[in-house]
């Protein structure tokens, strides 16, 4: 009903401008909400709309609608609307508010949405003190889905899933969201109001306006919990449900202000706006000008490279760095590369390994299942991956003697005490580079210039670069010697 004019009288209380005149929803229900008779959602919507009207913010309000009975807010509110995934309204509101700091963002959620599946989101949004307003409509039950127990269901209250009534032993105590959030340092206003009678409703109207106003003033996070009747699921008349809020529900969820820092709060500093998308490459150091030039792959394009390498050893042996240098050199030479470190929840110095692929073609998967070359830096790694080496491939093993039971007729082996050799070169830690030297000699796929470039980029200390280069050279020489011996 529009607010028609009557001579000598003026409209004192009428439909808010923040609501659409007609609701564009199904069938003929264009002038009434989908809420049941006596449902508190209608009251809360009216309070919010009134606050929007009074603060004059309709053109910059964005309502984040939840999952639950109040999902259809977008049919009623003539403001910006987004419908969030179940429980995620505070996270969506955070993103909207941060990307549009001048907007007024209101997350409207029920208790199933906010206190159950979305308990993590609301907690962290409150703890960050996001400058948003959250309206939390608590009717103590999952209404839209037919009345299942919610975290906020009262003790002893019957629901579809607690037919004997909620018990502490089975479902725990009702969750006091406002009290919990009030323990945090960031929120500006946390208040619980009710819809139990006209007096409570007036207070709720005031509280919701304050919560929105706090955001307009830039103060930070405000949440108003509204104890709200659900006559349908509670199986009561509208009037009984209203009074039940006041006479019963309020005993478990006392009304009041749990935290109010409105007076001492200062407008929050707006986080620096996110950089434009086009600037990101430069910030990350990957703009075209920042990238090293690279050294063209020396082979003919017809000459295909498709190298699969698995590197494995103890943490600290340089497993991942070996793989990185190989991949970086491949990148420098203009090949397609992938480098995939693979480690689980492992103790310090536990086993680690990585997959490296270099190819002239697009790489389909970074996983190396059948390595052409296995670099095994210790015996457990050899035992783990030895069987996977492609027939005709190579095993480079860090050890004097190759375990008899690991010997395979169809693979080539270079087994040497690489750690000792590295020690002789100057530092046992460059054993990985000696092994990489041997691997490069086997693969024969990369120009030396690319390897030097990769080392230069990944190893910052020039002393280490020099040592690594000597180690690589030694590795190449060792492989050549071993081939002569055969």
């Amino acid at each position, binding site marked *: *009903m529009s607010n028609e004019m009557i001579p*000598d009288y003026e409209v004192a209380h*009428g439909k*808010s401008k923040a609501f659409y005149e007609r609701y564009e929803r199904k069938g003929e229900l264009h002038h*009434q909400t989908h809420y049941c008779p006596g449902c508190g959602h*209608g*009251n809360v919507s009216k309070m919010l709309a009134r606050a929007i009207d009074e603060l004059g913010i309709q053109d910059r309000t964005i309502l984040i609608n939840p999952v639950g009975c109040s999902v259809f807010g977008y049919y009623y509110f003539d403001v910006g609307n987004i419908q969030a995934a179940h429980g995620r309204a505070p996270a969506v509101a955070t993103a909207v508010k941060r990307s549009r700091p001048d907007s007024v963002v209101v997350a409207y959620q029920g208790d199933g949405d906010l206190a159950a599946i979305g308990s993590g989101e609301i907690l962290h949004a409150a703890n960050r003190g996001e400058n948003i307003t959250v309206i939390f409509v608590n009717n103590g039950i999952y209404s839209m889905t037919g009345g299942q127990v919610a975290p906020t269901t009262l003790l002893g209250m019957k629901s579809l899933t607690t037919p004997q009534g909620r018990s502490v032993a089975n479902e725990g105590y009702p969750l006091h969201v406002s009290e919990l959030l009030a323990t945090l340092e960031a929120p500006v206003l946390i208040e619980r109001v009710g819809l139990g009678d006209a007096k409570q409703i007036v207070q709720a109207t005031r509280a919701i306006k304050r919560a929105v106003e706090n955001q307009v003033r830039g103060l930070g996070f405000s949440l108003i919990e509204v104890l709200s009747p659900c*006559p349908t699921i509670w199986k009561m008349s*509208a009037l009984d449900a209203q009074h039940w809020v006041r006479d019963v529900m309020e005993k478990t969820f006392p009304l009041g202000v749990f935290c109010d820092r409105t007076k001492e709060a200062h407008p929050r500093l707006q986080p620096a706006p996110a950089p434009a998308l086009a600037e990101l490459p430069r910030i990350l150091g990957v703009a075209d000008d920042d990238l090293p030039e690279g050294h063209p792959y020396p082979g003919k394009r017809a000459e295909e490279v498709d190298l699969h390498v698995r590197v494995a050893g103890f943490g600290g042996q340089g497993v991942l760095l070996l793989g990185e240098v190989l991949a970086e050199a491949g990148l420098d030479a203009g090949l397609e590369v992938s480098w995939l470190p693979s480690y689980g929840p492992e103790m310090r110095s536990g086993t680690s390994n990585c997959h490296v692929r270099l190819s002239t073609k697009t790489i389909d998967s970074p996983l190396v299942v059948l390595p052409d070359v296995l670099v095994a830096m210790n015996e457990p790694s050899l035992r783990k991956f030895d069987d996977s080496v492609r027939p005709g491939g190579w095993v480079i093993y860090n050890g004097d003697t190759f375990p008899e039971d690991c010997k395979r007729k169809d693979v080539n082996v270079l087994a040497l005490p690489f750690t000792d050799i590295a020690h002789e070169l100057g530092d046992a830690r460059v054993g990985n580079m000696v092994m990489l030297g041997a691997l490069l000699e086997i693969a024969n796929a990369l120009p030396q210039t690319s390897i030097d470039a990769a080392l230069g980029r990944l190893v910052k200390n020039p002393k280490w670069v020099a040592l690594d280069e000597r180690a690589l050279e030694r590795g190449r020489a060792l492989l050549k010697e071993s081939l002569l011996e055969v």
Partner: protein
Amino acid sequence: MSDTEKRDRGLLRVGVDECKGCGLCMDACPPKVIGMSERLNHYGYRTATYAGKGCTGCGICFMVCPEPGALTVYKLAKVPMVAAGTGVTGVS
């Protein structure tokens, strides 16, 4: 309508298509001037009805009503639009 006739401070209009007959306004109305219709509306609800006089324009029925557009509460304009002596009612 004569100038001497005492007019109610308030007036209530019920949107018959919007009211769902929950009865909250009836209970909350301080002067008890809201009743419930015998007839069902288009959707099958009985709807709130204003007794026609006695409204104070307090707005409590509007506050407790869950439906955004079901009730509209009017107040007598502070400056009467009836020009004294002309007998012409104000034009809205």
